[in-house]
């Protein structure tokens, strides 16, 4: 258990792509965070069923996707890459399917390592299937047992790193987001989610340690990316989503406190905050993940990344090849540029361009800049409890947005500005964790089971 109380870096200027204070070496000699940005390639099946009868066809798909990805890396002279196999729910539920795919990918990676010296590592991201029942059983029940068994089987059958997009607190966060209920979000992100992260990651770390592999990291995708997409569709205020982004960093940090060492998961845009505090390498995604989802952080996400990801792409045919190999090429060129800058001592100039081209075009981008991430990280470390840290991160994000708007650089419509006032006010008013839990239990009580959070 590491109780992070000091920043890993002296200033925001020290946060740089390709360099992490505490690098990770994994898989077939893959070094992450040692002065080079590497691609993280993720891919998914085209429209097809995931069931036992289909297993041969599924394995053929993965064989094609991974072989073509690895071949493209070799052809382009990329020395290494992270390969991510992210489970669809059925791949965690049907243990045999997830295990068979893991073993298949690992065999291909070994073959390319032996034949071409290609350094890769396999990140397996197990699906958090606990939220299937409502209210979800987060610590008991068949789904929980099956999920942990999927981690064990992944570790035993080829995973070099373990990750998850964990969902503890999501049942409350989803509704609180739709209602713009900031007190509810404090319950979800400041109380429930950190408790779940602690429970979950202690177990994942134990499994990883037993198999001598890497407990990599989590992502607040279920909270902050949900919020970002809702805001993008004009369902909720953008400022709320940006504040949620900052607040969600605390529950991800808990994973690192109990032993996750990075690289964090690609869709976790809170990664720079985690890097600032822990020094661990981070995986991020932006413009080259437009195949998977829209974002406002196409360039700025590159500013602090150690792995650069495409999030996920379907195995469909494009003019130049299948989508996974095409996106491998795109990521490779992005990485080449960053690595060239690092080699030439031009990394600061490139980073500044990544930041300035996005930061003031959207609040979503603003709060993940190196400077904002550093400030949010400092706000988090100025408190001890998960709840106080979550609240402090939210308030800091409000301040960052307000300051940027005051300078005139960030255009903030009146309507968004009014919401920012409301959000800040509720965060200020709700300093008492006990009261937030009590009020939240009354309001959201039917959505979550306290005992499943150790409450």
């Amino acid at each position, binding site marked *: 258990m590491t109780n992070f109380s000091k920043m890993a870096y002296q200033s925001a200027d020290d946060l740089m792509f390709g360099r992490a204070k505490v690098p990770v070496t994994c898989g077939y000699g893959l070094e992450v965070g040692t002065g080079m940005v590497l691609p993280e390639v993720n891919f*998914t*099946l*085209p*429209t*097809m*069923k*995931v069931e036992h009868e289909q297993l041969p066809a599924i394995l053929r798909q993965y064989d094609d996707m991974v072989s073509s990805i690895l071949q493209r890396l070799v052809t382009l002279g990329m020395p290494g890459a992270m390969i991510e196999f992210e489970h*669809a*729910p*059925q791949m965690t539920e049907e243990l045999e399917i997830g295990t068979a795919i893991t073993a298949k990918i690992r065999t291909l990676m070994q073959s390319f390592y032996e034949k071409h010296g290609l350094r890769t590592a396999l990140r397996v991201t197990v699906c958090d*299937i606990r*939220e*299937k029942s*409502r209210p979800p059983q987060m610590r008991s029940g068949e789904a929980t047992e099956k999920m942990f068994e999927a981690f064990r089987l992944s570790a035993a059958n080829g995973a070099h790193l373990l990750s998850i997009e964990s969902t503890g607190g999501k049942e409350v966060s*989803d*509704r609180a987001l*739709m*209602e*713009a*209920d900031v007190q509810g979000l404090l319950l979800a992100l400041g109380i429930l989610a950190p408790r779940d992260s602690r429970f979950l990651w202690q177990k994942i770390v134990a499994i990883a340690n037993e198999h001598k592999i890497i407990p990599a990291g989590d992502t607040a995708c279920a909270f902050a990316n*949900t919020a970002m997409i*809702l805001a993008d*569709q*004009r*369902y*909720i*205020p953008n400022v709320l989503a940006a504040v949620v982004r900052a607040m969600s960093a605390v529950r991800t940090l808990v994973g690192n406190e109990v032993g996750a060492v990075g690289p964090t998961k690609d869709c976790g845009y809170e990664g720079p905050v985690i890097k600032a505090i822990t020094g661990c390498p981070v995986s991020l995604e932006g413009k080259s993940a437009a195949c998977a989802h829209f974002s406002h952080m196409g360039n700025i996400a590159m500013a602090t990344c150690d792995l650069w990801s495409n999030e996920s792409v*379907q195995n469909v045919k494009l003019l130049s090849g299948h989508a996974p190999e095409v996106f491998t090429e795109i990521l490779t060129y992005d990485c080449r540029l960053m690595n060239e800058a690092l080699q030439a001592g031009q990394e600061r100039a490139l980073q500044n361009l990544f930041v300035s081209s996005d930061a003031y075009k959207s609040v979503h981008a603003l709060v993940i800049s190196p400077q904002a991430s550093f400030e949010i990280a400092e706000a988090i470390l100025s408190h001890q409890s998960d709840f106080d840290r979550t609240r402090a991160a939210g308030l800091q994000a409000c301040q960052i947005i307000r300051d940027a708007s005051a300078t005139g650089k960030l255009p903030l419509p009146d*309507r968004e500005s009014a919401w920012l006032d409301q959000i800040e006010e509720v965060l200020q008013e709700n300093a008492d964790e006990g009261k937030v839990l009590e009020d939240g239990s009354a309001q959201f009580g039917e959505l979550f089971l306290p005992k499943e959070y150790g409450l």
Partner: protein
Amino acid sequence: MQNYDELRECVIAGKKAQVAELVRKHLDEGKTAKDVMDNGLIPGMAIVGKKFQEGEFFIPEMLMAARSLNAGLEVLRPLLEASDVKPVAKVLMGTVKGDIHDIGKNLVAVMLRGGGFEVIDAGVDVPPDKFVELARENGADLIGLSALLTTTMPSMKDTIDAFQSQGYRENVKIMIGGAPITQEYADEIGADGFARNASYAVELAKKLLGVAA
């Protein structure tokens, strides 16, 4: 015609207590429950829907308005039941088998309720037979199927096939939606419609059921 301006404004502003109070006042003054609903509550909510469509309102504001609408309807409910006034239609919503993503489905449910539909939420990871069973039990007019993954899209077809094989397809309209879904896919699997987003789902539901917009 009775002036319902204040009632409408209170619905729009999401003032739950005032809406209930004003509804009681109108009834005390001798107005019928149907008149209060048709000329006060529903037009107020229609303005909310328009404001949302035009980007003036977010979902939280719409939800507040929907709650105030419900507060008014609660007062009217015994009187409406006595006079046999029914909701616009019944919609059964669910995320298909294998898929556990539900925020999109929940958003559609919010929108539909705001549009006067009664929504039955079947939850997530719903097997095809369960959809048919719930549709029969509740007399649903429309089925809404949601999926976020390419690997769970085939469950939509399985669900439509289940309605067909169990002889209930003619009793319901089926609309589908979710990030990977397209109109082409809806056509391919025999769905009646594809909702590209939650806002459009209400329009589509009305169109499929022949309900006046």
